[in-house]
């Protein structure tokens, strides 16, 4: 690491773009990702702590979260909105208490490791990001993740999504209850009477880091609207088996094994969403204990 590292503490967003335009200056929020990833190329840190970016707001139409909000703050807010809110499930199970107090939303999106417990749910919620710097304005999260150009020289200031009362399952596949997930699956839908609409399925940790499983959304989603739950469950199992899932070998597991496990978890998630099975949460060899933690 560079010991002559400079710190900058802007108080206004207008101060951010010229700082980020300088060589080697990167944003700092919680710092956990920076420390894990190494800072050999970093010459300066732009601390966002005085920019007032930690707010969490929700009204009837929109949810908005400041980039500086911590996992713990967002998990608590989401649990207050609904005990089974997907972000309460996912961020409540991420890392451990002191790390959840420190990991921020903005930093977690910017770095997006394969074990992220945040990005999958936000993709399923079709979140947008507000950027300041080389690129300014609102961009879909999926667009931000698809290339490097939006990420370089830009600071994430806020995340938002339209509140659609989507409910569903979050499953993280781990070896032990304190482990990071090898992959995670989000399945969300809007319940209308006995039918489910607007099905959204996201797999994180696959080859290419993440994929929205459109083939599953289409096959299962259409079936859910016209058949009884039991039949939809059978169709969901079939769709999960046929899902186009490619996984890299990781954490001592073969790609084939992880792809098989991802299909199993996908089927269970869909079944749980239909009310046929138990709740979601942690899964894999380390399953069963994380939910209580």
């Amino acid at each position: 690491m560079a010991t002559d590292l400079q710190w900058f503490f802007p108080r206004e967003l207008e101060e951010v773009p010229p700082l980020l335009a300088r060589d080697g200056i990167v944003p700092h929020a919680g710092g956990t990702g920076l420390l894990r990833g190494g800072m050999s190329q970093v010459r300066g840190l732009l601390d966002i702590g005085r920019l007032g970016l930690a707010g969490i707001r929700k009204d009837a139409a929109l949810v908005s979260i400041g980039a500086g909000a911590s996992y713990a703050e967002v998990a608590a807010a989401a649990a207050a909105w609904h005990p089974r809110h997907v972000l309460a499930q996912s961020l409540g199970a991420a890392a451990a208490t002191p790390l959840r107090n420190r990991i921020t939303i903005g930093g977690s999106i910017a770095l997006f490791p394969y074990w992220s417990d945040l990005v999958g749910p936000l993709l399923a919620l079709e979140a947008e990001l507000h950027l300041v710097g080389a690129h300014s304005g609102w961009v879909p999260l999926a667009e931000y993740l698809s290339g490097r150009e939006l990420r370089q020289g830009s600071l994430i200031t806020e995340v938002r999504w339209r509140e659609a009362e989507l409910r569903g399952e979050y499953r993280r596949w781990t070896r032990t209850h304190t482990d990071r997930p090898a992959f995670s699956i989000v399945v969300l839908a809007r319940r209308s009477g006995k039918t489910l609409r607007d099905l959204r399925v996201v797999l994180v940790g696959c080859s290419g880091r993440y994929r929205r499983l459109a083939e599953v959304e289409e096959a299962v989603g259409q079936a859910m609207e016209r058949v009884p739950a039991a039949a939809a469950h059978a169709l969901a199992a079939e769709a999960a088996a046929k899902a186009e899932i490619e996984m890299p070998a990781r954490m001592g597991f073969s790609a084939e094994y992880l792809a098989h496990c991802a299909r199993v978890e996908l089927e269970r998630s869909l079944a749980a969403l239909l009310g046929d099975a138990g709740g979601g949460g942690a899964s894999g060899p380390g399953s069963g204990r994380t939910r209580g933690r």
Partner: protein
Amino acid sequence: MEARFRINGQERTLSFPGDAVLLDVLREAGYLEVKEGCREGACGSCLVLLDGVLVNSCQVLAGSVDGRAVTTVRGIGTFQVPHPIQAAFVEAGAVHCGFCTPGLVLAAYALLEANPHPEEAEITRALDGNLCRCTGSVKVMEAVRLAARRLEDRHA
């Protein structure tokens, strides 16, 4: 670089490299109760309260702490006048080698400040960032429950 801290209620101005983590800065300044364990945020030995929030000091760049309040385990009680949580850890036999104890005490403190009547699952969750290889978790859980009762009695 130089930064101002309020450590255990005392104003301190400390000098350190720009890439230093809070753990090293605190230990260099003599706060040896903040233990160095894994340096990965996994063991909880280096826990401190940052503006009252429990964090791994090995995962906090010290430069970001300028002007903020840091509390170590010495900040909540002393050997002569221990905090009820510290006394409960001793009484319950939750201290063996002691290396993890400062972090466990602070994790319990953060929990009981926010939630004076925690349920079992809430205690387990609050301590999920701490590793203890001597006692396991049974005595520690007993200590937290005992501390909760003592604190309730004190406030009654």
